[in-house]
Each structure stands twice: as structure tokens, then as C-alpha cells.
């Protein structure tokens, strides 16, 4: 039977473009859907112990029988719906949601690298899982109260603030701003009102270097980022210095760290993901977060790991 790969991504996603260049080179048969994917159901047949799904999206017909591998990378999946204003609106919504859930389940049964279901994992939960696995994390406080914050700063001396979960740009006066991790000092605290919107604070770790680790099927592709000597990137390496870029070099994770990370990834049901860690001045490994759909290109290219090629081959050879 025809082996087809279904990829859902963004047109501007560099990491998937790199993989797709390899798929083209290997002359693989694949369907690429970009951006917001609206599925239109042609038919779903459930009879005589077999299930057939025939869908349409972006004028492409997708026959689930023909799809051997599904790789979800970016973008939303939803059902194509007409704008309706009649008594059936809510009824149709529920019907569509049930269909969508079933379609995603069926697609995820064929998932490789990433599926759709486990792409957004609560970061508080991740931290909880890390401490249960005996991985160190930064002391963390989520609070709405200046009083709590003041005593947290007293105990931890230097602290940072970062999003609890969201990673979306905020547009102010037409300019997109990312809320990068920032230092938070005594003056900042004194500028706070007594009560504020729930905000996350963490103890600031004196880094030796940061780690960005791409994990795929129990293999680790780790990179050390020497962001510490550069004042721009000291607190958040994404605040790139284009003139004197940070050194990003291959890193070999110690066995016990690998085994703890494998446990976390298994519990999160992730076949792949980008893991952020810090190695502190004492050589301790500190877990920050997992991003299920991280940009592996930023690890693969400087370390020459060839991850794009590895993923392409996995998709083909499945």
C-alpha cells in the first residue's frame, strides 16, 4: 500500500522546512498542511470491524488508510464550520467537537516525533514532575501578594520573573514584545501594588552554562549555551547578541540526568521535545521546562547533529 506522511505545520517553521527538504530529496510521499487546519469530513465509516476516515482540508483529500505516519509540528486543528445563527449552533458545536476528538485520536495513533494531543503541557505540572523525579528545579513562587514576594526575595537574594505558561507575543503600539525572563530586584518589588495578577518568580541561578536538549525516541542531542559572560544573554539567551554570538557547542549529558529526563518524557507521553536546563556554578543540573515542539534546528545546526535528516528517515522508515 502507498505509504504517505501527513505533516501539519506552519509555512514559516524552519525546523519543518529543513525536514521537508530531506523528504523531497528522498522522494518521499507526503502531504503538508500549513497553519490553521480546518478538517472537513467527507465520510467516517465504522462498520464490520473496520474504520474509514475520508477528510478534506485545504483542498487536499486525506484518506486515513493511506496515511502511514502523522507528524504534528505547528498550527491549530479544527473542524470547518459555517457561521450559523440558529437554534442548532450549540448542538452542532458539540457534534463537531466529538468528531474532531475522534479524528485527532485516529491521527495520533499514527504519530511520529509529535502528535497533536500532548503539545501543550502545563509548566507548573512539569516542575512538579521534575521534583518527583529528583531533578533539581529553581525555587519557585507563584503569587499575587507583595508580602509573599518580599519574603521570597529575602530568602533567595536574587530572583527572576517569567511567564507561568504563556509564550505569546504581546502587541503594544504595533510592536510585538516577547516577555523574556527578566531580573526582578528590590526596586521592582517596591513598585508592585499590594496585590497583583498571579505571577511566577524563581530564584536566579548562577549559571555555568545553559543546556538546550533535543530529545527524540530516548536519544539526547544536547547543546551547551555559554550565555553567562554576555550581559545581553545572561538572564535569557533568546535576547541574542548578533555581533558576538554566544557559543553553542555539543554537550554530553551524564547518565543519571539522561535517565531522569527519560522518566519525565515518558510520564508526559512525549516521543520528542526540547528540554531547557541550567548547569549552575556548583555543577548541579537544574531543570527548567520541556517544550514538546521546540525548534530543533537551533541545536542541530551549530552542533552538526543532522537531526532534520534523522527525523526525515524516521518518518520514511516507519
Amino acid at each position, binding site marked *: 500500500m502507498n505509504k504517505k506522511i501527513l505533516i501539519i505545520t506552519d509555512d514559516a517553521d524552519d525546523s519543518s522546512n529543513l525536514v521537508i*527538504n*530531506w523528504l523531497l*530529496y*528522498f522522494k518521499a510521499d507526503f502531504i503538508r498542511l500549513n497553519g490553521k487546519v480546518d478538517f472537513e469530513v467527507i465520510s467516517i465509516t465504522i462498520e464490520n470491524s473496520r474504520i474509514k476516515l475520508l477528510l478534506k482540508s485545504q483542498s487536499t483529500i486525506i484518506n486515513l488508510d493511506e496515511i502511514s505516519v502523522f507528524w504534528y509540528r505547528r498550527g491549530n486543528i479544527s473542524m470547518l464550520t459555517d457561521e450559523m445563527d440558529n437554534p442548532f449552533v450549540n448542538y452542532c458545536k458539540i457534534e463537531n467537537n466529538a468528531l474532531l476528538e475522534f479524528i485527532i485520536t485516529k491521527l495520533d495513533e499514527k504519530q511520529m516525533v509529535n502528535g497533536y494531543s500532548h503539545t501543550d503541557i502545563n509548566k507548573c505540572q512539569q516542575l512538579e514532575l521534575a521534583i518527583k523525579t529528583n531533578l533539581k528545579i529553581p525555587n519557585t513562587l507563584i503569587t499575587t501578594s507583595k508580602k509573599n514576594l518580599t519574603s521570597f526575595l529575602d530568602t533567595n537574594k536574587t530572583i527572576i520573573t517569567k511567564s507561568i505558561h504563556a509564550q505569546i507575543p504581546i502587541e503594544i503600539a504595533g510592536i510585538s514584545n516577547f516577555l523574556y525572563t527578566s531580573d526582578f530586584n528590590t526596586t521592582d518589588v517596591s513598585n508592585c501594588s499590594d496585590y497583583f495578577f498571579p505571577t511566577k518568580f524563581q530564584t536566579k541561578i548562577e549559571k555555568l552554562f545553559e543546556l538546550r536538549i533535543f530529545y527524540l525516541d530516548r536519544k539526547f542531542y544536547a547543546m551547551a549555551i555559554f550565555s553567562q559572560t554576555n550581559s545581553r544573554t545572561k538572564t535569557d539567551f533568546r535576547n541574542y547578541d548578533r555581533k*558576538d554570538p554566544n557559543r553553542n*557547542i555539543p554537550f*554530553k549529558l*551524564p547518565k543519571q540526568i539522561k535517565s531522569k529526563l527519560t522518566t519525565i518524557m515518558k510520564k508526559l507521553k512525549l516521543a520528542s521535545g526540547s528540554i531547557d536546563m541550567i548547569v549552575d556554578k556548583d555543577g548541579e543540573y537544574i531543570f527548567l521546562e520541556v517544550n514538546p515542539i521546540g525548534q530543533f534546528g537551533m541545536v542541530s545546526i*551549530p552542533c552538526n547533529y543532522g537531526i532534520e*535528516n534523522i527525523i526525515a528517515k524516521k518518518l520514511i522508515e516507519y
Partner: protein
Amino acid sequence: MSNSLEMKAPFILFTDCITVKGVNRSTILDLTRGVYYLIPNDLWSILNKEQGNTIEEIIIKYGTQNEDIVLGYFEFLTKRELIFFNSNKNLFPKINLKNWDIPSTIYQAIIDFKENFDCINFDVFHSLASLGCKYIQLRFYKNVNINEITEILENTVGLNILGIDLILKKHDGLSISELKRINKFLNVNNIFFYNANELKNDQSFDTKSPFNIYSFKDDISSHKQCGNISSSYFNVNLSNVSNSIKNNSCLNKKISIDSDGNIKNCPSMTESFGNIKTTRLESVVKNEKFRKYWSISKDKIDVCKTCEFRYICTDCRAYIEQPNDLYSKPLKCGYDPKTNVWDKWSTNPLKKRAIDYYKLNDI
């Protein structure tokens, strides 16, 4: 004694910095920052044999009479952020530079145009794209007007080609303002004018244009002008270095069509693998003879293999010092790794026979 240096901590050379040993001196290639440093071979030895040791230990080993030299080396290495200090060297494996690979059968192409364009079948762009070609250089050895240029570029629309460079002759029938008509071809990266009466890098004639314009005074009458080796062509980045370690830095995954339609590795070479009118590029690239130059890395080329610049330098197989020896040094290289002197290649008496052979006297 320097007090800014960490004397008691084991040092490690950042692994994105590669040392290359030459016969008389060496280089450190900083692959992340795109620069290279010339270093004495003594420092090459320290970097290759002493990593994981402390500066204090190295001074003891090399003798206190050399202390100032060793300290000078480490001040330089620290200042340029080429080393760091960590007691566990094993955590930092080297970058694997031997696995260079790209998803393209052909990556770059050169197409030359002279008298007429009849010999080019414009299906050639489709063939190139399907072979994975990402960069194409179109070189015109005659006066062309804007209509002729856009007509050719129309054939590249919708193809997955990332960059096109145009090499054009400056003449009265082609004005800079007409180049606006090229704006719609988003994959045009650079336009080079030769035979220009003024040397000007006019990059902002139209802010909407996706390409840069460069002008040269020289008249480029033919492909014989190609193949110069110069430090200005050095390219320090991971992909190029990795390719050069394994392959020929000029010809790997390159295909060319000369102005008569002959399919070649490079227009300057004599060997043709058929004419584009009758031969498909897809069949040429399968030919082992066509690919034979691809794997001639600098490590296999006489003289170059002893040169400290070998992984950042360009190469030329069209004009070589011994025309009958595939592995001889590029003719148009005036550098001698033994003396570290760059001389003019064209006046070197030892190269006279090869210059006569290729009829390069009047270039």
C-alpha cells in the same frame, strides 16, 4: 604574572573553534563568529595536547623560561573567548565535522550566456530545482537588456531556488532604474556589474528591491578570469569547513552550462558531458566521471594539504599547476605555506608552463 587568568583550572578550547595545522604556522577557525586567527605551531601543540590541564601545569611542563610566552598565549585565548575552564573535558565532545550532507544532488549551478540564448532550453531550471539546486549564478558575457533578463528569470518562478546571482556587463542599453523590473523575482540575491566606469556598491537604489548591486571596473571577457585564490574569499563557517574537510570546496554538487550549452563541472573546464540540447542534467549527475572532482578535498591536493587555510579556502580544478595531475595546486594561488608569503601567481616563473598551457597570458 597575569591576575585575570585562571591559573589553577583546567582549560578547554571551545569546540566550535577548530585548529588547523600548517607546515609553518596554524590557524584557529572560530566557526560561530566567522573569523580565523593565525597562531604559531607551538600554540597548536598546546591546544591539541594540553586541554584539560591547568595553565600552571602547562608552565611547569614547558619550563619557566617560556612562562611569558605561555601566559601571552592564554591571554590571547581568553581575550578572544576561545577557551573556557571546566574540570570535566568529557562533557564537551567535538563537533562532528565529517558528516557533511545536504538534501540536494546538485546544490549550485553556473550558466554562462554569450552570443545567443538559443542553446539554453529553459526547462533547465526545472531540472535544476528537481535536483535540489538552491543557488544559480547567471553570467552574461554580452550586452543584455532588461527584457532578455526578465524573460530568463520568468522560468525560475515557483521553483524552490533560494538564490540567483546575475553577473552583467554594464552598458548604455541597461540602466540601473530598469532593474526595478527584477524586484518581483524574490530569489534574486545579488547583481554584479563588470565593466563599470565607477566602482560603487549601490545597495539602496530602491528600498523595495530584494537584491544588492555591486559594481566592478574590470572587464570580464570570459570564464578564464575565474579561479583566483585569495584570502578575501576565505569563508569561516561550520557548513563550509565541514564540506571542505570531505569534499572539493568549489565543485562539490556543482553543475555548469557554458555559453555553448556544454554541460561541465565548471565553465572554465574543458571536459564536457554533453550538450544541454541533447543531454539531460539528471543523467549527467549520475555519471561517475562527472562526480570525480567532488571528493577532491584540500587534504588530497599537493601543497594545499600543508596549508593552514585549507578548510576555509576556495579551490579551482580548472587551472592547476600541473595540468596532467588532478591533485596539483590551483594555478592561480600565489600563497606558499612554507614561507607564508602571498606572491603574484601570474609572474611566478615556475607557473609559466601551466599559464601557457591554459593560454592565460593575456588575462
